[in-house]
């Protein structure tokens, strides 16, 4: 692999999410990290973007980039906004670290007209095989920390996530699955074949059920 996985991941999110978002949209990026996606969206689409992150070092990076950022947690900031205030809310590889992911998705679909979600698919066969063969928790370049140093990680799968959306009437306007290289599109049997999944979600029938 010529590029680091993190770089590839960034590119997948960059291209796909940037393709979804329109010029001058209002965008809220929950778990914005160092603000690289928002900086890109600002330059490329001239969006009004705000990032949210709990980590001060990441907040400092955003400020340095000139990306507006709010230091705090996703759940509490969402409470501050009216319905459909943002055109887009982004949860790019944030889902697995949230304390109450279901509640955040519900609130994100209230505050945003559209929600972009992307995550590492723990149902991917390599991840399953790794656990099965080693008997240990997954540890690779994406999840480099050992269990005792890592924050709690919610091991979400394509199957779980889609079942959640379907049960609550959340519309999947687009579902994009990428193979283990996080680049090659993968259409069939995504729960076992996709290493990475991205969704464009909307809530056409009003508030998402609890």
């Amino acid at each position, binding site marked *: 692999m010529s590029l680091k996985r993190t770089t590839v991941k960034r590119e997948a999110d960059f291209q796909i999410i940037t393709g979804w978002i329109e010029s001058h949209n*209002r965008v809220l990026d929950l778990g914005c990290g160092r603000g690289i996606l928002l900086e890109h969206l600002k330059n490329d689409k001239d969006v*009004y973007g*705000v990032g949210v992150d709990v980590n*001060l070092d990441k*907040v*400092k990076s*955003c*400020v*340095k*980039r*000139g990306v*507006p*950022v*709010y*230091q*705090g947690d996703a759940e509490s*900031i969402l409470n*501050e*906004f*009216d319905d459909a*205030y943002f055109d887009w809310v982004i949860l790019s590889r944030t889902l697995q670290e949230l304390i109450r992911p279901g509640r955040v998705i519900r609130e994100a679909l209230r505050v945003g007209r559209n929600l972009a979600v992307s995550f590492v698919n723990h149902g991917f066969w390599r991840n399953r095989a790794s656990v099965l063969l080693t008997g240990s928790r997954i540890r690779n370049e994406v999840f480099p920390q050992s269990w005792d140093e890592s924050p709690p990680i919610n091991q979400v799968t394509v199957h779980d996530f889609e079942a959640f959306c379907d049960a609550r009437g959340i519309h999947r306007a687009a579902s994009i699955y990428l193979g283990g290289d996080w680049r090659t599109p993968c259409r069939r049997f995504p729960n076992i074949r996709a290493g990475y999944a991205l969704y464009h979600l909307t809530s056409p029938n009003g508030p998402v059920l609890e």
Partner: protein
Amino acid sequence: MNDAEVQILTEREPGEVGLVRWEDFHSRTPFTFDCGESIPEFTLRYETYGRLNRTRDNAILICHALSGDHHCAGVHSLNDRKPGWWNNFIGPGKAVDTNRYFVICSNCIGGCQGSTGPSSTDPRSGEPYNLRFPMLTIRDMVRTQHRLVRDHLDLPRLFAVIGGSMGGMQVLQWAIEYPEYVHKIIPLATTGRQNAQSIAFDEVGRFAIMRDSEWKNGDYDPGAGPNVGLAVARMMAHITYLSDQGLEEKFGRSRKAGPGRTFFEPEFNVESYLRHQGASFINRFDANTYLYFTKALNRFDLYAPDGSLEDSMRQIRAGALVVGFTSDWLFPPAQNRDLVHALLRCGKTASYAELGMTLGHDSFLVHAPDLYRLISTFLAS
């Protein structure tokens, strides 16, 4: 609120603004306060550091807190024991880099450090204003400083306005009052309005001053005055600028050496520290100014009657970086966050950082590399 870490300057080092001097701006045009009363003229004492660029657009105004003044960096003499109150932030290569920016700090109207205030002489009567000085607001402080920077220093705009606590209120008021004039704002440890607890603390301070028999309805002689009341006000207020953890780390239960002569003499170091704070305050601060300033703080209110901040924040054009401090119980983080929530709801460019420092409200004054970094990169971005 202006007790930066004690920094003893023994020599002029690189990275310091070094020797500085103040200037006085005399405005000969009458000024009408928010309350409707006027004074025929006024003086603001200020200092500047760094150089104004050719396009005159690199100026940063620093707004001081309740007990601060215009002297925020450098020293007036090489014998000075302490530099200006924000010397750790301002200087060549520092967070507010005087190699890049022209920095201005002015003593507020109503003050007692060279600017016109209650202890100044009313030219109409030849007597000190004392309580005849008009009721004062944060907006009055800002409007008089606007005369200084726009009319006197002839600055077409301010690149940034920065301040903490009462200074943070002024920063917000600047951005609301002169939206086109201010490019960036950094309000620190501040609020859109004080809560009941903060007003309560100030009332205890005012009560101590006004019940001191030497106060004489504000008509005390120069050099005299309600020294006990002012010292008590300062001692109590100083506790609110710190935090339980900050006091514990600094003093704990440590005691002075040797037995006290009587049971009620200062015994714990924290007691002597507060007495020292009170005693040194009466030498440099005027009791009437203390009354006027705390009242201006208490009355400052950017919220609409329905409890929303949006009407005020909507007028702001400047990009904002708001910083709250977790241990600040005087202007708690939630009040700082509220400002950012409202700015974001109005579609403004605003950032919020919350620093986990232990020194309470005064955290914005002390050595804080995270804050240095936030300020310098926000200004440069």
